């Protein structure tokens, strides 16, 4: 099965036999792969009608609901892993959504485009909004509502009691960069975080 490289990377972070909730699952490619190759079970959440149909055709259970306001339908600790892949920048309430994710599962996987990438900074210096392969949209038709750099995102994780267990920094072309890169916030086009939620209960 040919999985998109970025999804392959996410799949590698998910243990076999996990119950996985994929928020913004698109056509269900990640879950279909996890179900077939890693004996996982799972549910996708998606709002785009064509993507939902594709997920159904792929045999992926998918629930149409609004990630911003309806995650309360999922019970506490009801999944092993919750995935939010390239979606956080499109939601209205990332703070609450991350909080809900930490309630639903102990392990979180979040992938984000990095608005702090140096080419974005350069464009801003030249008086233009950031655009790149990772963020290809003009300001007036972008689905991206919340722009964050890796540094600021990590501050939010910390505030929410989410511990970064692993961070994979990717070049703008999507290839992993060496870990421990001091200039990640400048050179990364995107990043994938494996997080653990620290429950007080």
């Amino acid at each position, binding site marked *: 099965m040919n999985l998109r490289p970025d999804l392959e990377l996410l799949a590698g972070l998910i243990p076999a036999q996990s119950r996985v909730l994929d928020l913004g699952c698109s056509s269900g490619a990640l879950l279909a792969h996890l179900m077939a190759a890693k004996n996982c079970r799972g*549910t996708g959440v998606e709002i785009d009608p064509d993507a939902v149909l594709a*997920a159904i*055709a792929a*045999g992926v*259970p*998918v*629930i*149409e*609901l609004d990630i911003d306001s309806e995650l309360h*339908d999922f019970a506490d600790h009801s999944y092993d892993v919750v995935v939010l892949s390239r979606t956080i920048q499109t939601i209205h309430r990332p703070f609450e959504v991350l909080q809900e994710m930490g309630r639903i599962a102990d392990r979180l996987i979040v992938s984000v485009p990095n608005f702090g990438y140096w080419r974005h900074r350069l464009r801003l210096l030249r008086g233009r909004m950031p655009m790149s392969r990772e963020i290809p949209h003009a300001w007036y038709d972008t689905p991206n509502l919340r722009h964050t750099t890796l540094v600021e995102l990590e501050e939010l994780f910390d505030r929410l009691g989410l511990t970064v267990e692993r961070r994979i920094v990717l070049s703008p072309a999507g290839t992993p960069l060496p870990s421990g890169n001091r200039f990640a916030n400048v050179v990364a086009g995107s990043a994938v975080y494996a997080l653990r939620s620290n429950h007080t209960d």
Partner: protein
Amino acid sequence: MAGSTQAGSVGLVNTQTVRLFGADVPLELAQGGTLGPVDVAYETYGTLSPAADNAVFVCHALTGDAHAAGFHEGAKRPGWWDNLIGPGKPLDTDRFFVVSANLIGGCQGSTGPSSTNPATGSAYGLDFPVLMMSDLVNVHRALMRHLGISRLLAALGGSLGGMQVLQWGLDHPDEIANALVIAASSRLTAQNIAFSAVARRAIMTDPNFADGRYAEAGVNPDTGLSIARMMAHITYLSEDALTEKFGRKPHPSRSHPGFGVDFAVESYLDHQGQVFLERFDALSYLYLTRVMDYFDAFASPDALAKISVHPVNWLVLSFASDWRFGTDHSRRIVRNLEHAGQPVTFREIPSAWGHDSFLLEVEPYHQTLRAFFDRALAEVTA
């Protein structure tokens, strides 16, 4: 497909009847007591595969019948779910074997309150036992065994039909690989029960109801039954649908304001009430609405125990403009199933037509069913 009368039709079909429970081995009822004999009217479309793994059971709603698809001899109108069932349709009879049965308690060929009570030799009337959802399901299961099917590829139903599917999946998950619960509810709200109560009161206070012995008296509670249907029909359509169909259009023969049929919508409801009398029985209306009132799928503390061991693939659908069993009803079903770890898919289908949408050819709805059925079949043929 010999005998097809048009492209995509299953063609000419017949309703068959089978005795599934005799007087000697009667149906054991949920409320205690027994019912026997039990005859069931049913139709089938398509061909059962040699492995008997392509069977889809269609459960009908309150006033449906076994005739879901194709044409009866001489009929101009096809079965009630003909837009879904047929060659090349989402429930493709070239690939699936489809079974549709009339409910017991009903009046279109299966044993119901108007059937002869073997103890008295006359119609049961109100001596017919009160039925519960699981009784309806147990009769479906007996038909399935009669047809040589031990496990359904899918069970499918809208409204009361979806409730049967839900009960069936929860109680016997080993018998259903895929369960499609459409525009249904896991339990009626007070408002839902209230509508049914008014309908029943209209029927039972009609002087011609005669304590349920109207057939012997040679009369029929026409007024009560047609009022029940008129009111129910309002709840099946959205306000927008009624506005689009009729608006405030006057009835063509209106001359001056009075208390006749002055508006087009009144004439429409009148017509719905009248044609209903030709095909439905007042006692069946009482019995089947009561089945819905008492239905509470997740009430028992061990309601989810069986599916936790034996998961079913669920598809739950609601329609945006349905105010009879709207999205909240479906979302409650989804929540319960999802919390039990079930693979469950849910969509709210955009449709302006209200509860009746489940019977219509709404494109995203039929696309969803097609995708779900195709995937279900691919899994067994893989």
